[in-house]
């Protein structure tokens, strides 16, 4: 008979263990903040990339080239250990914590990928839209803000959702500069307690929960962006809300 060594109770013990939950919180914070930075900077870079000014589009191109070509681990090491060696300033060294370096680095890295996603979104909007906006007297920036980007969003959201999920998992790499996030917290606890499979199950569980919750939100966002379309997609959430709101008493 096959002897399976797996203690479900241990899983239960560590599922809500404070160390694990703390690490989960770190992971979420880093991922969310980095995504916000990445998206904001990425959209700006994308608008720069489609500009007809060669200087503007060139600078953005350079940024994307560098941050996409180098591995994020290397970027983390450069940004944290590298800068600490380079900048011999006490104020900087005191305030450039591992955590902050991780958020900024992940954010700057993400911006390069978001730039390409946003650029694809902008290119997907038909040229007639820009013609119409310009013929009404809008400047390039006004047209971008009010006409092009709102339409580009529908194309930008799905791959951005992908990026967030990837970011969540990439945070585990922050261990290279000593940030203890979910995966590595689990690893450490596994080593301490000689319970490898159970701890990794806990980590997997939390990754699944976060990504699932996020997927529901993403679907709802896509539904709301489909304004003015003949067929608006139905999501789990919208169906749930319809049942709860409309058919009481059934």
């Amino acid at each position, binding site marked *: 008979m096959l002897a399976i060594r797996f203690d479900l109770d241990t899983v239960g013990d560590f599922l809500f263990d404070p160390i694990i939950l703390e690490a989960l919180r770190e992971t979420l914070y880093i991922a969310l903040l980095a995504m916000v930075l990445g998206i904001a900077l990425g959209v700006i870079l994308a608008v720069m990339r489609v500009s007809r000014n060669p200087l503007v589009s060139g600078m953005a191109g350079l940024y994307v080239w560098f941050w996409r070509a180098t591995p994020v681990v290397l970027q983390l090491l450069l940004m944290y250990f590298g800068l600490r060696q380079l900048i011999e300033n006490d104020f900087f060294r005191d305030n450039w914590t591992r955590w902050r370096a991780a958020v900024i680095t992940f954010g700057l890295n993400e911006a390069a990928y978001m730039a390409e996603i946003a650029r694809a979104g902008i290119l997907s909007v038909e040229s*007639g*839209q820009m*013609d*119409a*906006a*310009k*013929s*009404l*007297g*809008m*400047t*390039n920036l*006004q047209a971008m803000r*009010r*006409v092009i980007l*709102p*339409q580009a969003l529908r194309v930008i959201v799905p791959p951005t959702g992908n990026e967030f999920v990837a970011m969540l998992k990439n945070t585990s790499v922050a261990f290279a500069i000593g940030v203890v996030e979910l995966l590595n917290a689990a690893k450490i606890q596994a080593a301490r307690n000689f319970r490898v499979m159970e701890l990794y199950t806990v980590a997997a569980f939390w990754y699944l929960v976060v990504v699932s919750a996020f997927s529901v939100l993403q679907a709802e966002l896509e539904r709301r962006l489909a*304004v*003015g*379309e*003949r067929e608006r997609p139905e999501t789990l959430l919208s169906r749930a809300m319809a049942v709860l709101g409309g058919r009481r008493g059934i």
Partner: protein
Amino acid sequence: MNEGLVRCIDIHKRFGKLEVLRGINLEVGRGEVVVIIGPSGSGKTTLLRCINHLEVVDKGRIYVDGELMGYQEVNGHLKEDSEREVARKRASIGMVFQRFNLFPHLTALGNVIEAPIQVKKVPRKEADAMGRELLAKVGLADKLQAYPAQLSGGQQQRVAIARALAMQPKLMLFDEPTSALDPELVGEVLEAMRALALDGMTMIVVTHEMGFAREVAERIIFMDEGVIVEEGLSKELIANPQHQRTQTFLSKVL
């Protein structure tokens, strides 16, 4: 001397190796309605797009209401307009496109008031009232909150006309406004355009609708292969085309 609202002087435009406009000279007076006809590829659309500087001419000058499009004359030199200047000059020229180009994420009313609010900084209430009035004028008072996807082609084009009119332009450019419409919807758009002409708007219309050309336009211009082959009073040109190429073209269209 009564200077025309639009003056195109020796316009040349090429796309790569293809020379699309080969020396166009055109003048349109205030309040005049001019129709441009011609086979596809003759440069009609390009000419329209040059007038509101959506395309930049390679050679020649275009004056709209005395202002040189795309440039300023400074001390005898030509200085290129900044983006803001170009946008400002464009704001007084309205354009209606073959494919409507309505903003799909905004309602009909939203489409109409967007530019006045963003570009002319008109307060929302005022823009709203003006938008309602314009949409009522084109017969769409009951479609204010409809999205473009919910409107027929003819309705969409009428919203597009209202949207262009919201900026109170001095000149309206129409690029084959009914070509993409089902035949039964063409009439309602032509009617809106006719009303506009009767109101005194200066209009340059690229179209194949010869009925409209004969009834509403003062002059017809026939373009072929980047040059103006013939132009004349609309009824006369249709009845008695002088040029061989004009005759050939008209025999196909009429």
